[in-house]
């Protein structure tokens, strides 16, 4: 009976256990508050029900009581707030060395591209026990990537990347839902997350007919003529893209930003909005000329020449994730592997 009538969702990620712990804490706290109020109301209603000859006793109020029942709930709220915030930071801060997967949402399907080149629709295969980071965008309206068993959800917007991560702790197949209403087949925009044992996953990954995503990107980088301006062997008309990812970049308007996926994306689709200092505004926009998948491949390529296999140019390793972000993420990611079940 309880198998087809479960009352609690499966918990299959490190975050899931943390969310559940907070939820249980809240159930207890809120349950106690509800019980307290119900008990008082019922007790008073019964004890002080009208009786002939007995009149109500008028009470004006009590500042001491008012302060008590403002301050105590507020303090309790602050505990919940702080705890909730800590869990949120963990949910929202992907570890820096996570396996990356690109997700493109459209009415009404999920298209998934792995860095190794596999493509899937409405399915996502991931290894157990490893951090996985999803870099997501939408081709049309807003969607939301929701995996109840992992207790994670993130809206997927057109025109930019949003990021979500998890660390699966249990092999199995879990629901994937679109949680933001997106039109006719919103409820059909569902799929599964397949969590595999590492060995199975390796086999699955290596069965791919496509080359790695960054290789696709490299090919396009040449085909679209990016390489004519962005050269790594000599100064070109555009900046050398080797090693830019994760580094600060100085803009023509004086701001300094850290290069992340959204910045790369914007540089390709809307180069006018953020000009790199010291260069002519000659980069054409590629809006409408490349698909979301192609942008993903380009981004994956530019990242790949910044991280692994540094070919030319020094210090291309992403050791310098901007200071503030770095500290948050290192606080967030550790004990991931210990929490299994």
């Amino acid at each position, binding site marked *: 009976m309880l198998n087809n009538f479960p009352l609690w969702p499966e918990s299959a990620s490190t975050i899931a256990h943390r969310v559940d712990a907070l939820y249980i804490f809240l159930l207890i706290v809120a349950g106690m508050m509800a019980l307290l109020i119900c008990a008082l109301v019922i007790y008073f209603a019964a004890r*002080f029900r009208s009786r002939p000859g007995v009149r109500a006793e008028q009470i*004006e*109020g009590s500042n001491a009581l008012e302060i008590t029942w403002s301050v105590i709930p507020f303090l309790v709220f602050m505990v919940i707030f702080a705890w909730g915030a800590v869990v949120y930071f963990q949910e929202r801060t992907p570890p820096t060395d996570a396996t990356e997967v690109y997700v493109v949402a459209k009415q009404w399907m999920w298209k998934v591209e792995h860095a190794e080149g596999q493509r899937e629709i409405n399915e996502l295969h991931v290894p157990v026990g490893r951090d996985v980071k999803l870099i997501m965008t939408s081709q049309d*309206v807003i969607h939301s990537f929701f995996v109840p068993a992992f207790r*994670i959800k993130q809206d997927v917007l057109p025109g930019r990347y949003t990021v979500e991560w998890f660390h699966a702790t249990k092999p199995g197949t879990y629901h994937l*839902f679109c*949680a933001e*209403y997106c039109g006719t087949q919103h409820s059909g925009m569902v799929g599964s997350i397949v969590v595999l044992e590492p060995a199975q996953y390796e086999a699955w990954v290596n069965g791919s007919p496509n080359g790695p995503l960054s290789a696709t990107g490299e090919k396009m980088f040449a085909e679209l003529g990016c390489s004519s301006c962005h050269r790594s062997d000599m100064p070109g008309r555009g900046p050398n893209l080797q090693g830019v990812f994760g580094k600060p970049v100085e803009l023509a308007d004086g701001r300094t930003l850290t290069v992340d996926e959204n910045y790369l994306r914007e540089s390709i689709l809307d180069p006018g909005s953020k000009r790199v200092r010291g260069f002519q505004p000659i980069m054409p926009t590629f809006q409408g000329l490349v698909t979301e998948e192609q942008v993903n491949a380009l981004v994956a390529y530019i990242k790949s020449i910044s991280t692994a296999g540094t070919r030319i140019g020094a210090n291309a390793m992403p050791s310098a994730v901007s200071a503030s972000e770095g500290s948050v993420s290192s606080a967030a990611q550790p004990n991931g592997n210990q929490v299994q079940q």
Partner: protein
Amino acid sequence: MSATNVVPQQQFERETYLNKVYGMWSWLLTTDHKRIALLYLISITFFFFIGGFFALLIRLELLTPAGDLVQADTYNKLFTQHGMVMVFFFLIPSIPAVLGNFLVPMMIGAKDLAFPRINLLSWYLYIIGGVIMLHCMMTGGVDTGWTFYVPFSTNYTNTKFVEAGIAIFIAGFSSILTGLNFVVTIHRMRAPGMTWSRLPLFIWAHYATSIIQLLGTPVIAITIVLVACERALHLGIFDPRLGGDPLLFQHLFWFYSHPAVYIMILPSMGVVTEIIPCFSRKRIFGYSFVAFSSIAIAVFGFLVWAHHMFVAGMSVYAGLVFSFLSYAVAVPSAIKVFNWTATLYKGSIHYDAPMLYAFGFLGLFTIGGLTGLFLAALGINVHVTDTYFVVAHFHYIMVGGAVMGYLGGIHFWWPKISGKLYPEGWARLAALIVFLGFNLTFFPQFVLGYMGMPRRYWDYSHMPEFQVLNVLSTAGATVLGVGYLLPMIYLLWSMRYGKPASDNPWNAAGLEWKTSSPPPTDNFKEEPVVTWEAYNYEELDAPPQALEVPVG
């Protein structure tokens, strides 16, 4: 309390606001706030049953996992129109435009609202909006969800969004005008002696509500205009391909729509604050705390909008701020609940139907508010937002809380409004049925939500494990439907067959009870002079000889 309620029949001949003039035009062109209240009562009841009908179809579709009763597009239109009708054409006008309209002038000892003709205009705007909404629904409808997020509403839906937008836009002005009228009336038209600290808390609640209506509603109007322009002219305000930002829409939308939930609940709190002292025969516990908590809610309510956007792609730090503020705004609501509870202490409690509704309100609002604490906890919000957990939460507040209060108020003031007593036994039964039906409908949805069932799903055949809870919920909705139909039937019945009511059948405090039932057009025979505090139940219940001393 009921034996003294019946008054001799001959009193019915007296001239009242109901029988002073007759004929359709005497109603359609009236500027009497009491008649306008009745016009509103009829119109919002009509929309309530339309919205309710949609809800019933939604619940029936969800009885089975497969999408088998209606088409996907039809389902999407059903929940969209259910939301739009219930929010903009029932809940927002409900208590303010019916009970507020009827009672605000009487409670402060005025003859009418400050701007009687603007009051009538507000009803006409509501009706124009309502007719456009009906037309929109009958000629195809909308499928954007009541939240009409961009870019779906601007670039993708091919349903009649603009028409629905115009309907809401116009109805919004009706709401602004009501708020404006109340603010001016409460400031300028109080009877001699009716100081701010003697105002019934119903008035404080309406004052706070009116401020939100005045300051918040223009923002949704602007938002609708922007969406319509974007849809027609592709200006690039929200469309990222043209350099716009879809999140800007969500900020604008919730900047109104979070405060709007307080437009719906504050008046209900005001009603309950009148009912509980009356049936406990006690002054309210902590008058000034209850009064100022209404104002605090109105002010802080404007600062928490982005708690609807924690997974929308906002910065983590914005999330922190809005989570914190959401907890801050929960404090005044908690204060109210504690004060209501404390008012019962050492009271002399009667279980008449209005009080049963007030008890129901207390229970349901408490659960709704407490689950708000879950949603405001960032880590939990990520999991439960856009699931049935949120659906359950806001129904506990807006239906459990606001509608319970509304029904309680309708029963409480029915003798004043209609001059007739409603049948007490039926009324108690209905209160019980509503309470039970409500919990059966919405409690399972909390569980569903935490299990992960997303909201606005037409078909859940991929997750048949959700069915049992959905069946419970649909069963509850049926019970709830009966609970809502009952008052409609017996209140109508009582208008003809009910026993005539005395001026003050509950022996309640408040100026509205000092005039006849139903009141004359000018409310009072002579302008009242107030020398007592609100909720002076001590004096009202004093034995007769004690009463003579203070009068002289």
